[in-house]
């Protein structure tokens, strides 16, 4: 009771918004990046818009008063939730338009609101001061890099849809971009864990410790190995890239689900002094359930 308790108010639907929003915006940004490297990627804008819309739909299902949902646009001055909603109004139609007109320029333009949307999602978590696992500064690079990596992963899973894309991906810098994203997400994950080490609720740290092996093995090592193999064995490029994409995407989803659902312990309660009783002296304070700096 005194120690940090697990938040129960944001469930799989809220996690779904961060998962779908990150993957959708990452997909748009990566599609725009790879289009500049000669790949044909405007077709992915449809899926990306669907992802973002699905994420927002999940949030709509979670709020207590869905019929008042338009009120969400009332506080652009300080609320990142408002900003996320506003930019979605631009992002989704632009994504759909990109798909229908098949314009690379429009795709690159759509990457701008997509990047803002992804940033807004990172900031939503960062501003949640009641939850130590979310409010750390290190959550920002982690949400950004995992969103981009998930987007790249989704693109790789579906890269066989368009003839010639897989060859262009490995012939050009595409695979280097994918490798870099996997690497950067690994660094962001390490940085995130480091930012919380010895300064977070015990239970949060236990969850992150349990998740670490999955994230490092499946989200870091495996995609790197598969991408190098894809570069080496031209005949198997398509299945290797798709499998790497699968690991990149699902590890991102796993990571976010862990952080939003299982590691999200509240701050809890603490006192810096205990009172004097009778003629005694005041005593030391207490912060139950925390692993503090030694």
């Amino acid at each position, binding site marked *: 009771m005194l120690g940090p308790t697990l938040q129960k108010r944001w469930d799989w639907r809220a996690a779904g918004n961060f998962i779908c929003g990150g993957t959708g915006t990452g997909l748009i940004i990566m599609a725009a990046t790879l289009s500049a490297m000669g790949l044909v990627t405007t077709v992915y804008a449809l899926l990306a818009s669907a992802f973002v819309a699905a994420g927002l739909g999940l949030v709509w299902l979670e709020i207590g008063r869905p019929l008042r949902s338009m009120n969400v646009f009332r506080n652009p001055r300080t*609320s990142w*939730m408002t900003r996320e909603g506003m930019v979605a109004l631009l992002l989704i139609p632009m994504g759909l338009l990109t798909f229908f007109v098949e314009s690379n320029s429009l795709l690159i333009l759509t990457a701008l609101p997509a990047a803002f949307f992804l940033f807004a999602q990172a900031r939503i978590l960062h501003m949640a001061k009641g939850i130590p696992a979310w409010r750390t500064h290190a959550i920002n690079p982690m949400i950004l890099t995992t969103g981009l990596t998930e987007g790249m992963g989704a693109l790789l899973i579906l890269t066989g849809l368009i003839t010639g894309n897989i060859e262009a991906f490995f012939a050009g810098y595409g695979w280097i971009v994918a490798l870099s994203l996997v690497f950067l997400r690994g660094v962001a994950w390490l940085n995130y864990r480091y930012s919380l080490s010895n300064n977070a609720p015990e239970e949060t740290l236990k969850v992150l410790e349990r998740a670490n092996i999955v994230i490092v093995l499946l989200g870091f090592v495996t995609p790197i190995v598969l991408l190098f193999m894809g570069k080496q064995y031209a005949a198997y490029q398509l299945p290797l890239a798709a499998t790497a994409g699968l690991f990149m995407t699902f590890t991102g989803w796993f990571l976010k689900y862990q952080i939003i659902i299982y590691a999200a312990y509240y701050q809890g309660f603490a006192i*810096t002094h205990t009172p*004097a009783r009778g003629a005694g002296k005041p005593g030391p304070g207490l912060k139950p359930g925390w692993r503090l700096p030694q």
Partner: protein
Amino acid sequence: MTRYVMVADINRCVGCQTCTAACKHTNATAPGVQWRKVLDFEVGTYPDVRRAFIPVGCNHCLDAPCADVCPTLATYKRPDGIVSINYDLCIGCAYCIQACPYQARDRVDVPNKAYGKEFGQMKHEQKVPHSERRAVAQKCTFCSDRVDYGTANGLTPGIDPDATPACANSCIANALTFGDIDDPNSNVSELLRTHEHFQMHEELETGSGFYYLWERK
């Protein structure tokens, strides 16, 4: 300017939970929801054990994280420092619940029955269902309706019981004191001048409006 705050003398608090009961009685909160409650801390191991009773609730922060994140402006700060909620604007997104480091907020979608489903609602629950609070954020209001009534009728919040939150009125040990911290001559300013004090989670820089006295200077 005026900024109302609560001061709790933890040397005085005996953990009787009268403030908790008074709050529930006044605000008719749903079963399981306590806008004011008293935590029971035990520190140390035998034979050097200490116990402290710590009243908690909304801290009516100066830089309220809940108000910053609220996408609807339903949570807002009044000019007198009280953080308030417009229930008609709130969409129940629960973002404020995640932003509050004091676990002071609740959202009740379907109220529990105090004695279980088979007994239905109690008479007082039927009389004050507070349907406006259903599925939206709710928290301690510092009994702002009493404060407003008092200031409109020339009373001084924290001094006159009719203008003072129910928890502070009911405290049997005079551990809870409500008043205007911006008035250097107020009851709370005097207490803070004469006692060592702390605010919970000061490192989060919320500008908490809930002070704990732990020793006389």
